[in-house]
């Protein structure tokens, strides 16, 4: 019954039938016991009445005893007196009941199988000078008892069989949504991830299962879409420098050039190689980050010092565009994080701000604690801002708010993805507040000391 090879449906049906069989057996047994007891009670009452009648007649009108069989219908009895020869009815002799009653002793009501092939109920009582024994044929009652027993015994397997069939059918009906879901799920492949399982009643067990499965499918669909988009973007970005290299090289080989020209051509090709290398490096960094193999080594970092350091690195770029670059921090703010990774993130954010802010703009870097006491670094620019539609996706790899702004302005659209990774790897997150034509504010929010400390030591092996 517990064989794991049986289907859930069959197991349910068998369990169902098993329990039903147990119930039927117990119930039938109880009925039989009860019926049997009440049947014998009737017979015994009849016997008792007969004995009383015989006793009275024998005591008061002994000569009438021979007429008892004819008058009262008591056909099976015998009377044994001390000094007289025993008296018994004709039927008593015929049924061979003499052997059933021991001489001159009392006997409780007892069932007895006579040599003539019938069942009798026999009882004997002792009076001071005589004993009386009487018997009643059980036949009809015993037959009806056995008929009942036979009916029950034959009905039980039938009921159990019915229970198996019915249980199997019912289990099949109940489980059919599972089968349908399985069939549907099997049809859903990478190409048809948009399809969903049918949800019958969203509040029952199967509905919940289907809903959960559909949610999983949605997430899978999203990540497939993102992967597809990423692959398309990545191959585009990889192909661009390759195309440039190939065409520059091929054109150069069309006609002999002077050495200076060749230098130009090779230099141009090497620039593309540089671009490819940077792209691959960035992608590798993000891949390592996603697979979790780049583990941050956390220590206490003073954010203002780190912001100063990064700003000094990039200040020349702002100066070239006559932008003012200010680092402000009223109070000392410490964070527990990996300084190298955070520096990389902030550098990308700041570089992004300088790149998109027009000449003469202003960029502010502020270190402060947020309203709920978390250490944060804000990078605010007076650039064009990011339309709300793009804000959610701006941190995705290769995503550009303005597709026209290609790699001419530098980079392949990985800077913000790297920045976000750097902050998330440190247990924080980046918030973005931006309004078109009013500039953007990127806020790095890092975890408080207590959140970060448990995982500070022994991470890098």
């Amino acid at each position, binding site marked *: 019954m517990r064989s794991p090879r049986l289907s859930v449906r069959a197991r349910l049906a068998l369990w169902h039938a098993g329990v039903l069989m147990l119930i039927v057996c117990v119930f039938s047994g109880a009925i039989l016991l009860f019926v049997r007891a009440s049947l014998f009670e009737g017979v015994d009452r009849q016997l008792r009445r007969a004995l009383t009648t015989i006793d009275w007649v024998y005591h008061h009108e002994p000569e009438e005893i021979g007429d008892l069989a004819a008058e009262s219908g008591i056909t099976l009895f015998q009377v044994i007196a001390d000094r007289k020869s025993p008296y018994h009815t004709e039927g008593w002799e015929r049924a061979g009941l003499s052997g059933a009653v021991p001489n001159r002793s009392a006997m409780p009501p007892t069932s007895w199988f006579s040599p003539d092939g019938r069942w009798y109920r026999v009882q004997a009582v002792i009076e001071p000078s005589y004993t009386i024994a009487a018997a009643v044929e059980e036949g009809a009652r015993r037959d009806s008892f056995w008929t009942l027993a036979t009916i029950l015994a034959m009905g039980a397997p039938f009921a159990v069989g019915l229970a198996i069939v019915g249980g199997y059918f019912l289990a099949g009906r109940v489980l059919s949504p599972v089968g349908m879901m399985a069939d549907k799920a099997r049809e859903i492949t990478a190409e048809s991830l948009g399809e969903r399982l049918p949800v019958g009643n969203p509040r029952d067990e199967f509905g919940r299962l289907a809903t959960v499965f559909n949610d999983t499918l949605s997430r899978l669909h999203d990540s497939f879409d993102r992967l597809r988009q990423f692959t398309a973007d990545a191959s585009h970005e990889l192909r661009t420098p390759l195309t440039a290299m190939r065409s520059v090289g091929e054109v150069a080989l069309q006609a002999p050039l002077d050495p200076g020209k060749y230098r130009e051509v*090779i230099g141009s090709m090497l620039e593309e190689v540089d671009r490819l290398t940077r792209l691959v490096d960035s992608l590798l960094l993000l891949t390592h980050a996603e697979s979790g193999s780049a583990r941050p080594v956390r220590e206490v970092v003073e954010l203002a010092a780190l912001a100063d350091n990064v700003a000094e690195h990039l200040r020349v770029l702002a100066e070239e565009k006559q932008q003012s670059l200010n680092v402000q921090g009223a109070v000392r703010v410490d964070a527990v994080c990996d300084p190298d990774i955070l520096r990389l993130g902030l550098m990308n954010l700041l570089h992004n701000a300088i790149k998109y802010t027009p000449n003469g703009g202003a960029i502010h870097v502020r270190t402060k604690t947020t309203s709920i006491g978390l250490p944060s670094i804000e990078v605010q620019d007076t650039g064009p801002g990011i339309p709300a539609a793009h804000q959610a996706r701006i941190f995705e790899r290769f995503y550009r708010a303005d597709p026209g702004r290609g790699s001419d302005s530098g980079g392949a659209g990985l*800077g913000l993805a790297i920045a976000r990774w750097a902050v998330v790897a440190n247990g924080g997150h980046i918030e973005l507040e931006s309004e078109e034509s009013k500039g953007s504010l990127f806020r790095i929010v890092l975890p408080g000391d207590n959140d970060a400390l448990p995982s500070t030591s022994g991470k890098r092996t």
Partner: protein
Amino acid sequence: MRILVIEDEKKVAKALREGLEAERYEVRVAADGEGGFLQASRDSFDLVLLDLVLPGRDGIDVLTALRERKVTTPVFVLTARDAVEDRVRGLDGGADDYLVKPFTFPELLARIRALLRRGRLDPTRKLQHDDLRMDLGARKVTRRDQSLELTGKEFEILECLLRHRGRIVSRELLAREVWHVGARATPLDNVIDVTMVRLRRKIDDPFEKKLLHTVRGVGFFLGARPE
């Protein structure tokens, strides 16, 4: 100076051989781990350039075997695997330095020179090229006896260029030596270019003879233009 190159990629091996021979090194090339190991343990070299991914015998394996045999030749590891574990394993196994492919040739040369020079103190406190002089102690730079005002980074870049004068200095080397940034996925290249433009304004623009040159796609160098 004899250098053993253990590299199975034929094009890379050929480029390394030619590039190093042009720098007047004597170069032997082994195309697999086993051959490289035999040559390195049998002959004496001043430096071994070791690729980590090799047919037959893995580079790390070759390196550990060499160190077990007490071969103390400096080993420079080249690896295409950009995994931290690999680097750590390489240096633990006894490598003296490593570069991740694709590397720039000037960077490789600079590192090789540094490795071969290692142990010898560099007492130079004054650097000079043509009429450009740098006093490291006083942190002063003059050209044709005119004092030049340089910012910290400009000074350090110029020092790096003077130390490698006549040779190309890559952006990567500058990022590492001047900005102390090892990771390459940083937006530092723009910063280097801008700083270089400003440095050139100060040391070259007022003078007729130009000293600082850009080699497109490779890097910068200080010296006479090779034309």
